[in-house]
């Protein structure tokens, strides 16, 4: 049975439909990444699953139970709320790093060793520093520590690496990988494609409160004929090129002057694109074939422009 099962979830704020009929499942001892740009509804979804927010409709089952107002789930779940923007990561501003981690540890029956966890996240030298004097990245690391110190079987991490430098990002990734290896179920949100690709067993792509694609990173990026990419002047008539390539083809101007062709064998695509450009007196630049990246998939699914 799935550890988290969400079915036709809906939640509005006034007239804003933040989550609009969303369904997915997170399997035990796996990392599930909810991927989407800002405002897609990731935080709302995670907070509903973590029991922090009520829903309007739909069913949510977490460890076999409804998470809303369910105190029996609290010892089994760890939550790292999103900190960026609101600054509401949920820590007393005047409390010291070591103090607050010890406090959260004291709520659990079999907590992790506080000193070892501080060490692992490179926070030992900050143990006596108050929360409000920490940098954004240090706050994120402590927030992650607070989510896992009670040895939960399921953790919700809302944008765990937002605002981290490269070293801290890798430290966080390695802890998430170790959590999974230890049998912890991880549900995280991110808008970073490389993060989802590297960490997740299962990716749920969300746009406008709905799931637009789901699967393993490998399945989502599987070659279907390969993608041919090229640069040229912006504004070429892609519909015309599509007609020339055949009905299976999908041609997009990914960003101004950057084109992607999918759905046809690479050889055919390369030859056609070259000929078509020549007819127009356009010189295609950086013509390349290759497996789609998760970024291509994401952009194709959620519309043009890079994710925010």
């Amino acid at each position, binding site marked *: 049975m799935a550890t988290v099962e969400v079915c036709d979830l809906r939640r509005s704020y006034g007239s804003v439909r933040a989550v609009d009929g969303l369904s997915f499942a997170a399997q035990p001892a796996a990392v599930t990444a909810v991927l989407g740009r800002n405002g897609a509804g990731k935080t709302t979804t995670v907070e509903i699953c973590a029991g922090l927010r009520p829903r309007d409709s739909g069913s949510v089952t977490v460890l076999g139970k409804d998470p809303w107002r369910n105190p029996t789930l609290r010892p089994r779940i760890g939550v790292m709320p999103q900190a960026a923007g609101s600054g509401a990561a949920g820590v007393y501003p*005047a*409390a010291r790093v070591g103090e607050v981690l010890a406090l959260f540890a004291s709520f659990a029956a079999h907590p992790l060793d506080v000193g070892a966890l501080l060490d692992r996240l490179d926070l030992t030298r900050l143990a006596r520093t108050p929360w409000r004097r920490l940098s954004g990245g240090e706050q994120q690391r402590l927030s992650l520590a607070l989510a896992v110190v*009670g040895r939960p079987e399921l953790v919700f991490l809302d944008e765990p690496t937002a605002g981290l430098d490269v070293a801290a990002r890798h430290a966080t990734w390695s802890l998430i990988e*170790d959590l999974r290896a230890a049998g912890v179920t991880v549900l995280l949100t991110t808008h970073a494609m490389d993060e989802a690709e590297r960490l997740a067993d299962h990716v749920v792509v969300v746009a406008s409160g709905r799931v637009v694609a789901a699967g393993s990173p490998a399945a989502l990026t599987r070659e279907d004929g390969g993608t041919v990419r090229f640069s040229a002047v912006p504004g070429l008539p892609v519909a015309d090129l599509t007609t020339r390539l055949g009905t299976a083809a999908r041609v997009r101007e990914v960003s101004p002057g950057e084109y992607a062709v999918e759905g046809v064998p690479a050889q055919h695509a390369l030859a056609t694109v070259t000929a078509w450009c020549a007819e127009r007196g356009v010189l295609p630049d950086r013509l390349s074939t290759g497996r789609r990246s998760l970024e291509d998939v994401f952009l194709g699914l959620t519309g043009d422009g890079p994710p925010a």
Partner: protein
Amino acid sequence: MTALDLTPAPGAAPVGRRIARHAAMEMKLLLRNGEQLLLTIVIPTVLLVVLVHAPLADIPRPRAAFLVPGVLALAVMSTAFTGQAIATGFERRYGVLRRLGATPLGRSGLLVGKTCAVLAVEVLQVALLVAVGIAVGWHPRGSVLAAFALVLLGTVAFSALGLLMAGTLRAEATLAAANLVYLLLLVVSGIAFPLTDFSPAVRHALRLLPSAALADGLRAALDHGAHVPGRPWLVLAVWAVTAAAAALRWFRWG
């Protein structure tokens, strides 16, 4: 790198331990906050010491017998109401209430812990003010039991009012309003300055304030002995019940 055993081992600590550790943290934070200490410790103590000797005002004699119950009421108000409202308002803004409410501590544990911290700080305040009071010539008498019960009831009323404010207003508004109310109530409740200059009608109305009721009640309990008139009890009880009901109805956690 230190090896960590991340294998799940979920479970909550015993409820007593959770609440005790949380209350200890809250108390530590209260005592670490300079502005809070000014309100809860410095102002009541300084008022007591200065007004006992100051050549001003028509403070009834013996002055210490008038002032000590008054500053005790002020101490309760400063910790249960002003300090708690400001701290809780910012904790709500920073998401502390929501996050702690989602741990095994839970929302009820959080409220119990906060109350324990308030009571613990009040014990320190009372001990200090009684000691200073005796040093400036106060002779404790009357009913300690009645005074204790009044302090508890006052704490409930002021805590509920403070939480109501913290749970409904923005943090900055709570900060400003809680300080303003503290100052106003200090002046118009007969805490340190008698209400003799007000007209009888106004005086009657002011006696319906929770701070006035607490000061009046404590004065009666610590002066005339066990007999505390019914009105302070009634006024405090009405405030406590009304404010608690309103806080339960309107308090927002996040």
